[in-house]
């Protein structure tokens, strides 16, 4: 059962991810991206990581996607897409070649990873590791320092965003 579900979800994930790249309309791309996120959340549920599944939906499908949609709707993407089509074919070729080479290198590096060698036999797989309670314990013991540093990072990012976006009296919109 879980096997079949996995293959189904994997198929949906890959297909919708390809559609993100290939669809002409940016709004359609974003909608396919939401579908991708939902199917990835399904994968998390299969892996017994419910918390991660929910967070994935809230953060990615909820917050980040809404942001993407806003940006796409505010900026007129149609003219930008037409500009991109006019761009030099040579640059496109260079992009395809260099990203293709990178893909080849990454895949050939990943193929060499021997997964079986790295799973230590003594460290038995804990199926409950994705539960909220276990995750919380991990987060507030082993990963306490990174957790707190993330909050510092968010303060800095937030203050900066407010600073750059804030308009003074008499200052006019740049657009």
């Amino acid at each position, binding site marked *: 059962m879980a096997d079949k579900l996995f293959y189904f979800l994997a198929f949906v994930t890959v297909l919708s991810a390809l559609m993100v790249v290939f669809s002409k309309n940016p709004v359609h791309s974003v909608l396919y991206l939401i579908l991708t996120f939902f199917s990835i959340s399904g994968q998390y549920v299969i892996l017994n990581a419910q918390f991660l599944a929910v967070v994935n939906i809230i953060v990615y499908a909820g917050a980040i996607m809404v942001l993407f949609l806003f940006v796409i709707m505010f900026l007129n993407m149609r003219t930008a897409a037409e500009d991109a089509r006019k761009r030099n074919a040579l640059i496109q070729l260079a992009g395809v070649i260099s990203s293709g080479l990178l893909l080849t290198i990454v895949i050939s590096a990943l193929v060499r990873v021997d997964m079986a060698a790295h799973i230590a036999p003594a460290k038995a797989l804990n199926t409950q590791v994705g539960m909220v309670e276990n995750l919380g314990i991990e987060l507030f013991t082993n990963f306490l320092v*990174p957790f707190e*540093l993330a909050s510092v990072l968010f303060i800095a990012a937030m*203050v900066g965003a407010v*600073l750059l976006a804030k308009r003074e009296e008499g200052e006019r919109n740049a657009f």
Partner: protein
Amino acid sequence: MQEYIQVLGVELGKFSGLLPELLLLIVSLLWLLPGFSKGQKTNPIWLYSLLIPIAGLVYLRWFSAWKGQSLGYGAIHFPETSKYFYLFTAGFAAIPIIGFASRSWGKNGFTFQQGFFYLSAIAGALLSLLSAQLLVLYLAIEILSFSSYFLAASALNKNASEGGIKYLLQGSAASACMLYGISWLYGITGTLNFTHPLFIEGLKMASPFTVYMALILVLGGITFKLSAFPLHVWVSNVYEVAPMPVVAFLSVVPKVAMLGVLWQLLPAIYQAIPQVYQLIGWVAMASIIVGNVTALVQKLPIRTMAYSTVSQAGYLLLPLLSGSELAYSTLLAYIIVYSLANFGVLIILENYGWKSFTFSQFAGMAKTHLWPMLALLVFFLSLIGLPPTLGFLGKAGLFLVLAEGFQALKSTFYLWMGILALLNAAVALFYYLHIPYQAWLKPKGFETNSKVPEMPISAKTWWPAQILVAIFIVILVVGFFWNSWL
């Protein structure tokens, strides 16, 4: 309830070793309290009060609080070799505050937001030096990066916003690379703690090709902060648009911090795969050559300085090819030489109002401004590495390190690195001596018929800057003659 409070007390007590950095972060928030108006005029006293937390930090770490044990479940450690990197990072962060007057920070002078970002950037740099875990390292570098983006954009005009956004976009790409590389390392080794024996074991077991790939991705994020070759493109743009104190900060402090990080990170990787030094060597060589060649063709001195820091980043990477005692002391010495000379040049360019000059505008200036031109000459000679300055000893140390590596490993790679570094040091002569050449050898007004607009030269120089410049010159010249410490 009481039990919980007790547990909390015990848990918090475990973090007492990190108190100076936590205090710095808390104090940095104070600069946000006075108000959040954009470009608000402030009393310069606020600018100089930034020195208090920095001085406190240096005092605490220098005298007492450098504890040997790790904390935060192995996330933070205090290795002896990091201590000097830490002190240099904090100490050099104080120099832009002293060396530039409040008016150099922007149209309206120093603002409170700049104070906040300045302190949080320092905190990020210092935490990255203390991190023993890749995730902590990543977050610390991100804190440093985010603060740098906003500092770079903090002149609050159109150019500055554009430069800041470009910096932000490139930085995001670099940080994504780094995070992906960290996830690879985690997958390969099963631990994020790079001081753990399991980390080295895991690297040894994995295929070297995979480790190289992961390492290249991680190096992406680090070379971005170092402004070394593959991700150096932001440098010239930021140098042009950012306020000069920020430029001075960005050209030294992140570099020192990242070199300290590499000094902690690389030994573990060298133990697993000794050939990795070639990768670092290629990065160093590419930065030296690319930085030099692009610096040669620039029209503006400030852009030349920007690309010259790229090549200097390459030189700073050379000692990392070997982990010996000599390499360590050479790296520290070269950091001192580079930082002081670089600060000196930027301080003079800003305080005399020469930031946006072209080279030809310096023609004949030695007659009118003898002392600043002499000071510039000393700093440029140190950056090239010519004899009457400490820079010569720094460069000589680099070649000694390469010779030592050649003898130890019998690898001609070190030999070629040495030859190329020497040739490039000669190339650096041409662009570093361009300003002194114009000032001394060209008659004044030689190119006045060109379209260069005459810039008014500010007569009001900032007096602490002159004292600083004098101190730097004394260190750089006396250091050459009194060199028993090397």
